[in-house]
Structure formats: structure tokens, C-alpha cells
């Protein structure tokens, strides 16, 4: 089993310029004070997520722009993506914007050719690896390995996600969860179906299944399992409500185990209004709000990452085209074949 010295080794790699993926370079975030006023009406399809925090952002944008009216249709992200595709097929366009909680759903819409191109001064505000011609990530989330601190130390956790399959750890996971399936999709893209199948089989032998990833983190904290597979913010939230929680985060290196996925937005209709609306989501104020309140990772420069995460310079996520995570069907088939779904 590979062992590692957690932060120290990451720092060394960063210093050596060996990180495969750059999370640290972007233009400085723009303040809302410097953004144009919004005038007119837009319809936004809003994927479910983060309780009412996205709603608070939208309400604040409307309040700041009295001549702007936003109509919102809410629903699960995948359902809304399917609705957009179905509407396009029927020759109907009801949505001007689509804000999705995962980039896979964005990929479904962009690959259908329905997203409008975005100006480079807008996409250029984001970190280099998050710049796309026809959609923009809003905030990020990292795959992590939450571990029970009574049982393990960070250096006990392998820095290679593939090594978990050969380890003796008991592992918590939530295979039905969309974020987990995106992670498996990333592993398929990086390692291929055969290796991914073997990994799933290996982990499944010692895995305990949970409905959601917060459940995974809570089971880790209780000591029901040694470690888990989950997005970063569940552990940060648990520690916020229970500061002495027996859980900490470890990160693998340059593999699907530390994939950075993102919520994202795209414009379905042409025109400045949609583009300017997106500018508000990338503003310093909105990015700060989502980092502080939702523990999401800001993707523009000059905004601090949520408290409790190591410096982003020390994280080395794999270089995966996020829109390719939309290709979920082979992942689900593979997971079913292995018997974990």
C-alpha cells in the first residue's frame, strides 16, 4: 500500500511545479459595483442544490436590479437537462439560462449544441482549467477521503485512489449518488472500464453502502467505517456543527479520487442580458457568499476557499474535461454489472 505524508508531499510537488492541474491562476474577481445593471426578463432552469443558498443569490441579484425579472423553474438537475433537450426537440425554448449542480448535466446540453458561446472576457475570469467556450463553472467541489481520526492518521491513507481496492480499510460509499457516479465516470475516462471494474469489485468487498454522502461522512465519524468517499463540503459542514467530530480529510493525487467537479451555468438564448446575468454569479460577492455559506470552492481569483480546506495549491486534481462526465450510461451499466447498483 502506498503511504504518504499528506500535505508535505503535496507542497513539495507544488513547489516543483509538478501539479498536473492548475487551480491557482485566474483573473481577479469583479465586484458587482463594476457590473452593468440588468434590465429585462429571463427564465432560469435551476437544478436542486444547496438548500436556499442559490435562491438567496438570485433574490439578491433581482433586488439589486429592480428592472430585472427572473422566472425560475426548479427541479432535479438531470430532469431539467432532459426537459431542455426535449423542448429543443419539440422546437420550443422556455429557458434562457440553465444553472446545474453538476457539470455532467451541462455536458448533456452543450453536446446537443444548445448552449450559446460566451465572451472570452467572461470565461477568462475563471481558473485556466475551468474555461469553456459555451458554459462557465460557478463553484467547485473536490472528491475527498474523509477518515476517522481515532483510527487513522492522514499518512495512513494512500495517495492513489486505486490502492484503496487492495487495502484493509472498511469503506463507506454512496453508489446511487450523482457525485459518486461522476467520480466513477472520471475513473473510467482516466483508467478505462476494465481497471475501473476491478477497482469497484475490490472496494465493494469491504464497502458499506449509504444513501447519500453526508451519511457516509457521519458513518466515518461514528467509526462505523474507517474512511469514506465523499465531496469535501459534507465533512466541513459536519465539523462546523460538531467541532470535535472525529473526521478529517485526505486527498489522493492526480486521479479521480480528487476530481474537482463544478456547478455550472450556460445561456440558451442569445443576447447581453443572459451573459451579464452570468457575470453576477462570478462576482467577488457571490463567490464569497457561496464559499462562506455553502462551503463551495470559488473558481475566480481573490476569493478565499472555505475554511477547513487545505490551500488549493496543495491539491492536484486530474485533468478531466468536466463535460465528458455527462456520459453516465456506461458508468451505470458498469456499476450494475458489478452489482453495486
Amino acid at each position, binding site marked *: 500500500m502506498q503511504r504518504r505524508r499528506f500535505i508535505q508531499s503535496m507542497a513539495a510537488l507544488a513547489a516543483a511545479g509538478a501539479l498536473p492541474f492548475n487551480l491557482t491562476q485566474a483573473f481577479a474577481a469583479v465586484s458587482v459595483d463594476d457590473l452593468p445593471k440588468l434590465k429585462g426578463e429571463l427564465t432560469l432552469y435551476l437544478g436542486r442544490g*444547496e*438548500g*436556499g*443558498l442559490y435562491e438567496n443569490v438570485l433574490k*439578491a441579484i433581482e433586488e439589486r436590479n429592480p428592472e430585472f425579472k427572473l422566472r425560475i423553474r426548479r427541479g432535479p438537475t438531470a430532469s431539467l437537462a432532459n426537459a431542455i433537450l426535449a423542448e429543443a426537440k419539440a422546437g420550443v425554448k422556455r429557458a434562457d439560462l440553465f444553472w446545474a449542480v453538476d457539470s455532467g448535466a451541462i455536458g448533456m446540453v452543450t453536446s446537443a449544441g444548445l448552449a450559446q458561446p460566451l465572451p472570452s472576457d467572461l470565461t477568462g475570469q475563471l481558473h485556466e482549467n475551468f474555461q469553456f467556450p459555451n458554459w462557465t463553472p460557478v463553484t467547485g467541489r473536490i472528491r475527498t477521503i474523509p477518515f476517522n481520526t481515532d483510527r487513522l492518521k492522514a499518512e495512513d491513507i494512500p495517495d492513489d485512489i486505486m490502492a484503496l481496492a487492495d487495502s484493509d480499510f472498511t469503506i463507506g460509499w454512496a453508489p446511487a449518488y450523482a457525485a459518486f457516479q461522476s467520480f466513477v465516470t472520471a475513473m473510467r475516462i482516466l483508467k478505462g472500464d476494465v481497471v475501473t471494474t476491478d477497482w469497484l469489485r475490490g472496494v465493494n468487498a469491504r464497502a458499506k453502502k449509504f*444513501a*447519500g454522502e453526508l451519511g457516509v461522512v*457521519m458513518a466515518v465519524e461514528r467509526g462505523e467505517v474507517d474512511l469514506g468517499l465523499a465531496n469535501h463540503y459534507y465533512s466541513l*459542514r459536519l465539523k462546523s*456543527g460538531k467541532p470535535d467530530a472525529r473526521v478529517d480529510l485526505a486527498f489522493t493525487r492526480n486521479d479521480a479520487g480528487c476530481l474537482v467537479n463544478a456547478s455550472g451555468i450556460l445561456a440558451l438564448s442569445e443576447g447581453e442580458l443572459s451573459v451579464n446575468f452570468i457575470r453576477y454569479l462570478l462576482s467577488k460577492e457571490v463567490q464569497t457568499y457561496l464559499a462562506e455559506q455553502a462551503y463551495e470552492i470559488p473558481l475566480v481569483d481573490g476569493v478565499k476557499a472555505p475554511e477547513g480546506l487545505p490551500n488549493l495549491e496543495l491539491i492536484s486534481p486530474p485533468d478531466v474535461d468536466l463535460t465528458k462526465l455527462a456520459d453516465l450510461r456506461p458508468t451505470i451499466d458498469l456499476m450494475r454489472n458489478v452489482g453495486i447498483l
Partner: protein
Amino acid sequence: MISKWISRQHLIGMLGAVALFTAQAAFANGPIGEHVNHLSDNIDDYTQEVKWLNTEVEAMITRYQQGGVKEANPELLVENWEAVKFHSAIETNYVPVYASIWQGLFGVKGALEEQASIEEIRKQQQFLAESLWQALGAVKLAAQYQDKGLTEHVTTTVENPSNSLEALDAIDNRLNRVVAKYAEKLPKEAVTIVHDTYLNLFEGVEGELIALDANLVEDLEKDFNVTLPQAIQNGGTVDEVRQVVNTMLGKLDTAYALLEKSAEARKDVF
């Protein structure tokens, strides 16, 4: 009795009552009619239907005493209930007592089919009659709020909650519906509602809630994933399942208060 129901809910007073009578038509057990948006105009019909249902139950018990189970034909109880407009009037307005009606219907049906003593059959009949009259009272109260424009129009689709507080209200409604489905002798559907409620609603709330009270989230996680499904699958009484749900509703009240306080204290976006 109605005021007691209201006091159990999150919001106090008038606003609380309005929240109680928010329609959830997408879950209607069978088609709903436009009459549910004109309750006052239909109160006389509903009253007649309640009287008719009670008369039919009495006639069924008489037939049972004269000719046994076959003569009584207990299957008619459910058929009669599904045939009346009042069914959707209470279902779209107040699910807890809707669940009690199903409990009462199957109480009478079971007692007749098992050829229980006449005292037991009369006890079940009394429970059903009380539930029906309570339901009529609830619909009359809902009609008053509707007349004042304090309730939402009943539609065939339900808006997704836009924040955690709305999600908790929707969870309350669905948990009461779990009791109704269990009382309706549909345990698999009841468990499906529990799972769907957890995945589609509670999961969206617990991330925010855990930062406020981790132990409360842990308790509710167990309730959703273990305690309530097990209570249903173990085949306990309707009252036992209702007790589990009521305990969960109490915890959700606590969650509501915490999230409401947190929302008030939250910093502004701009």
C-alpha cells in the same frame, strides 16, 4: 381538535393554518376535481357524502349481523370512499386525518372479515365516524381560509421547494402521507415515499442543518433510513407507525426553528 392539529405545526396562528392547508394535489389518490378549489360551494355535498358513508357502514354492519361476512360485502367500504368527492377534498387539505380515515376503513373491514365481536366492530365504526366528522371540520376550516384568499390554488403539479423551510413543510406533508398509505394497506408504497422524501427533500436540507445541530441530523438520518422503514416493514399497527412519524415531526419542528433562526442571521449576498 383542529386547533390542536394546528398547534403541532411549525407556524403559529393564521400563517400556520394557511401552511396547513397548502395543497399537494400531485399526490392525490386518484383524480381530483376542480371542486377542491371551491370548497365553500361544495360543503353541503361533502356533508351529505359523510352522512351517506356513515349510513352505508351502519347498513353493512346490519347485513353482517343478519347474514355474515359475504352478505356484508366489506369491499364496498373502500369503493364507497373512493367514489366520493370528499375524498380529494380532505386529501388535498389535511393529510393526517385523511390517514385516520383509511385506518378507520380498514379497521371496520378487518373486523368484519375476521368476524370479530360486535363490540370490536362498533369500536372500529366509531373511530371511522369520528375521523370522517373531524375531516369535514378540517375541510370547513380550509374553506374559510380559501374564501379569504389565504390558500394556494390546487393544481395537478407541485412546485419544488425553493428553500429549506419550504422543504421541511413538504417533508411534513409526505410523512403524514406515509401514515395514510400504511393505513391504506400499501406498505411498499409507504416505504417508497419515505425513501423518496429522504433523497429528494431531506438530503437537500441536511447539509445546511448539520452545521447547526449534527446530532439532530444523525437522529433524523436514522429515522428516515432505519426506524420508519422498519416500523412499516415489521407490520406494526397504524398507531405505531404514526407514533414514529410524530416523533420525526417533532424533530423536524426543531430543525425548522434552527434553520429559520439561521436564515435570519445569515449575511446578505451583496
